[in-house]
């Protein structure tokens, strides 16, 4: 898998001395180290890690250590999930039972567990879940497919797009208090903001190729 950035020279963390202490603390905690997991157990973490990587198309474990930690903490806290369908299980059950269901689905189709099928097949399973068209297994009577996919996606996206490395690659200027932004008009940037390189200068930041993706 190859990830590119238009902003190879930019690191949002170079501005951290300009951030207020609360924000700096919140963001730096995403770089680890992380305490032991509280909710995820056994192979759950490995399955979730692979799925999360596919959902946002990235493979860097340092980033997914944070994503997994975020999801684990969220599921463990039980602070509320804004909304769910009346007949859907709570998100902790949805994820836990859903990961088992994904494994069962993999067995039914490939006679192997999810971690041992090819990446292409793993993507196919996720695609089927997204539209609620995965092969029939008993698990789907209590685990709604699309809601499972959406839950895994929103949890992953929430963690992933909160990581400062990902911000840097997007050229996102990041936290700006107390400094603020001043050159906000079209075509203008403040001196500390990301500078875009031309398409031809895209820097490969990860040369790990994957088969068939």
């Amino acid at each position, binding site marked *: 898998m190859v*990830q590119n950035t*238009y902003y190879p020279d930019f690191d949002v963390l170079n501005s951290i001395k300009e*951030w*207020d202490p*609360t*924000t700096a603390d*919140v963001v730096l*905690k995403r770089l680890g180290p992380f305490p032991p997991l509280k909710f995820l157990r056994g192979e759950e973490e490995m399955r979730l890690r692979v799925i999360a990587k596919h*959902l*946002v*198309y990235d493979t860097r474990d340092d980033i997914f250590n944070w994503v997994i*930690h*975020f999801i684990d*903490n*969220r599921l463990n*806290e039980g*602070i*509320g*999930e*804004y*909304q*769910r*369908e*009346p007949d859907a299980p*709570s998100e902790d059950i949805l994820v836990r039972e859903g990961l088992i269901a994904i494994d069962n689905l993999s067995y039914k189709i490939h006679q192997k567990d999810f971690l041992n099928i090819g990446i292409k097949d793993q*993507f196919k399973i*996720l695609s089927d879940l*997204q539209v609620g068209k995965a092969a029939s297994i008993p698990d789907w009577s209590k685990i709604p497919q699309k809601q499972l996919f959406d839950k895994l*996606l*929103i949890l992953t*996206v*929430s*963690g*992933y*797009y*909160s990581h400062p490395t*990902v911000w840097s*690659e*997007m*050229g*996102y*200027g*990041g*936290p*700006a*208090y*107390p*400094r*603020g*932004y*001043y050159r*906000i*008009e*079209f*075509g*203008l940037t403040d001196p500390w*903001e*990301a500078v*875009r390189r031309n398409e031809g200068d895209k820097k490969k930041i990860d040369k790990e190729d994957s088969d068939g*993706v």
Partner: protein
Amino acid sequence: MEYKTSVKHNYDHYKGHRYDNLDHRKYGDKEADVCIIGVGAAGGVLLYELANAGLDVVGIEAGPFWDPQTDFASDELHAYSLNWQDTRLSTGNDPLKFGPNNSGRGVGGGTTHFTGVFYRFHESDFRVKSTDGVAEDWPISYQDLAPYYDKIENDIKVSGPKHFPWGAFNGPYPYPEREPISAMAQVFREGCENLGIRSSTTPLAILSAPFDGRPPCTNRGFCNEGCLPNAKFSTLIQHVPKAIDKGAEVITDSMVTRIMVDKSGKVSGVEFSHKGEYYQQKAKIVIVAAFAVETPRLLLNSACPQFPDGLANSSGLVGKYIMPHSGHDVYAKFDEEIRLYKGTPVMACTQDFYESDAKRGFVRGYTLNAHGNRPLAMAKVTALDAGYWGKDLREIMLNFNFYGMITLVGEVLPHIENKVILSDQKDEYGMPRPEIHFTYGENDNNLIEHGVEKANQILKARKGKPAFVAADTGHLLGGCRMGDDPEKSVVNSFCQSHDIPNLFICGASVFTTSGGANPTETILAIAARTGDYIADIARKGSVE
């Protein structure tokens, strides 16, 4: 870790006193004049207005008393704590999402995380049935609210244009418009210009110059995450501290679970839960100002022998006729950087499509807002609402700086099947979780189609390439609609319940129709008007 970041504050606040327990309450077993449930947009204004009128007033808030300097961060994930995260059950053909785009938790409520967009409703919004033959007319006119719009705008120094082209009020606003405007606002206005559509800078509850010890905006863009510099208005920093100074008490981290009723059929106070213990606050008047979901939920959960179907519910309409705004986000990709993260999110708009136009095939209309964004918000709608994931999502987000966005704020007509009811699932307080049903109607869908098309035309007219549309919603209104007829509404024009004279309901829940604009200013204006009315009643010594 975000969710573990403990907010350690005091729970009981009144002038000169801050306590981290409830052992020293100002009124305790005594009866206050007024108890307000929910210290958000409406509750904060009511707290201030009633304390200012010399009444003994207590506000009870489910969430904390935020300190912006230590509790807010310039970070989207961290800001989840400002939202009402408690699980609600959401269903229907178009199930609503809750949290960042509607209700808040903590003193200030949704005003801590709104974009500061501050529109008045138009005159036609209050008489939709008379002019368009749909929905219901409000029991008040624009003119009834106009003085309160004026008052609120002056109290908080709204920054806006010298001339606003639409509606009954065309400016000028108390403070000058914000300048410069962001790149997104620029391309929006240029796109409108190219099509002959009128546009304007947006009136904002965000300072363009210092006021009241608060600085002007620095364009950091984090309005939705809680304003650290205090340049953006919220009742947390504006009304509530002044109310406390005038003698109001605010009890936080306390969930009101029941409104009490005495033998005569009047309300006598509330019961609330704090750290697992139950307390009571007696009051001559109770005002429920707890958002369009929690307000009907509490009224229904307070059913008692005198009112077996819930309080204020003789019409059977408590919880009915809820209305979000259709809030579709229309994205386009540009050849040059827009950098949506910079500047106040909304700095330009058009209301050229606000009023009904028989040629369009639907009634009522909408506002289009040029809209900024930050990575997590964009990734969430791109993934969940537009359906992108994997390589597609990564590719879009790597080009984050090249995307522009226009957001629709579309009027949604009231329908009785769109409602909040009590489910059979219980929460941590033992209260039934609210179950919210929502389905768009045909008029709503036609309006959305028109609005999305117009937004795309504007983006295209400025060389944006339409990319994708995220079917989002914003705000939530109704559930305890106001009206003159007790059989067709829950409260009268002063937010007083038809059934129980000393029970008031105020805030987003009393809207009869949704209008086609961000509702915060109207919520505040209604609250200020209700505050005047209650103060007047109190002066006369009766709530009959």
